């Protein structure tokens, strides 16, 4: 048997313009979803540690459901399932963003909870003993420190969510993988095209890692 793989660089390069069209969609779904997920994460992360039980349990339920089920099932549910309830179609982009938002929101809730709980209780006590209200103590003392500690985990979640969007080719949003699949259907250059797709994900995730490292470094300046 004489099998030789030929990697056709020209085919790879040719696919670039086509794949690039998928990038705005990938970015929009990832970062749109993550932005909403961050807001959800702050709200539900804080509800999760609320001293009030009836605020805590809905947060726990939400977190467990969306961490405990695959994001692919979540997006299928939203895109194909929800319209049956709502009585009208949901566009694929909206479904994708919603799935990332809800899924990352559950993980970010836990990140927020961990970050806030990691701050020594003496910090809060020092703030309260100076006359700050509980809200002020949280806003000026606990949150800034907690957020700094959350950055690595948030970056990690960002990378996971960016990669999760690759699953959304199934609902037909023209993101990176979807663009690759369409292109391969006519050129049959799967090796080269998926290689380029992988490279593009890598560029996006590495840029995010790099940006977060800068933010982290700046935040820690002087300490």
């Amino acid at each position, binding site marked *: 048997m004489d099998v030789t793989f030929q990697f056709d660089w020209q085919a790879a390069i040719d696919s670039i313009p086509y794949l690039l069209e998928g990038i705005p969609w990938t970015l929009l779904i990832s970062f749109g979803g993550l932005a909403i997920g961050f807001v959800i994460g702050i709200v539900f992360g804080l509800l999760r540690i609320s001293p009030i039980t009836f605020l805590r349990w809905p947060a726990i339920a939400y977190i467990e459901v969306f961490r405990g089920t695959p994001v692919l099932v979540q997006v299928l549910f939203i895109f194909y399932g929800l319209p049956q309830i709502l009585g009208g179609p949901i566009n694929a982009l909206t479904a994708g963003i919603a799935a990332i938002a809800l899924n990352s929101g559950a993980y970010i809730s836990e990140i927020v909870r961990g970050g806030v709980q990691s701050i*020594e209780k003496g*910090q809060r006590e020092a703030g*309260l*003993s100076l*006359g*700050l209200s509980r809200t*002020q103590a949280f806003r000026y*003392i606990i949150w800034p420190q907690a957020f700094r500690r959350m950055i690595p985990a948030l970056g990690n979640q960002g990378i996971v969510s960016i990669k999760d969007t690759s699953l959304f080719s199934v609902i037909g949003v023209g993101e990176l993988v979807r663009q690759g699949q369409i292109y391969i259907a006519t050129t049959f250059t799967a090796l080269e095209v998926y290689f380029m797709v992988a490279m593009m994900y890598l560029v996006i995730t590495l840029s995010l890692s790099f940006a977060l490292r800068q933010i982290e470094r700046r935040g820690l300046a*002087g300490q």
Partner: protein
Amino acid sequence: MNETTNTASRQTGEREPIVRMDKVNKHFGKLHVMQDIDLEVAPGEVVVIIGASGSGKSTLIRCVNGLEEFQGGRIVVDGNELLPNGKSGKSLQTIRTEVGMVFQQFNLFPHLSVLDNVTLAPMKVRNWPRDKALETARKLLARVGIEDQADKYPGQLSGGQQQRVALARALAMGPRLMLFDEPTSALDPEMIGEVLDAMRELANEGMTMMIVTHEMGFAREVADRVIFVHGGRIVEQGPPEEVFDHPRHERTQSFLSRVLKH
């Protein structure tokens, strides 16, 4: 219990006490950590609280600014009343703006510069403009001898310097009463002196202070009254010469013989 005399009222005559604790009781689950605590602190008085580990010293002073709730009795601080089970409402906040506290672990805000540590509460609680808060902060930092560290972050300072920043931070609110919970216990021996010096100065200026400490020499020197706590009760109290040199209660005697040995 009433073998103890309240020297505060003797010293200050008619004046209203800044702190009055009436039959304060506190439980941690089954543990009865404060048992019928009656205590008055007069304006300008320096009260030092001593006692073995776990006797309830921290709990006692933390009740004064509401960091701990209690279950029975009442506490009046400068005319504001704290009620059992955290039902004090607005007076809690008022008390906390009038009462400063210095902690064993400093509890400086590590994400803020020394200057911002000191200006935060005056700006956010008292709504002082930044200039005024900065001016006060610089004066206070100078007073505790660390004006040249103003732009550093807490993590860049020695323990002794951090604790002096913590003192300046509390003083920036212009407190009527200062609480100290073992302010030198986390310090290396060579830094204890600088913190005690700053506290001594504050006492000489007439600040009302409640101090939990194991520094018996310092207690003897600055205290108007020494309170010995054991098992959640005030077992004995009096002027330092009395309590240290002629302790009446055997618990006090055995505690002192243990701590004064080394």
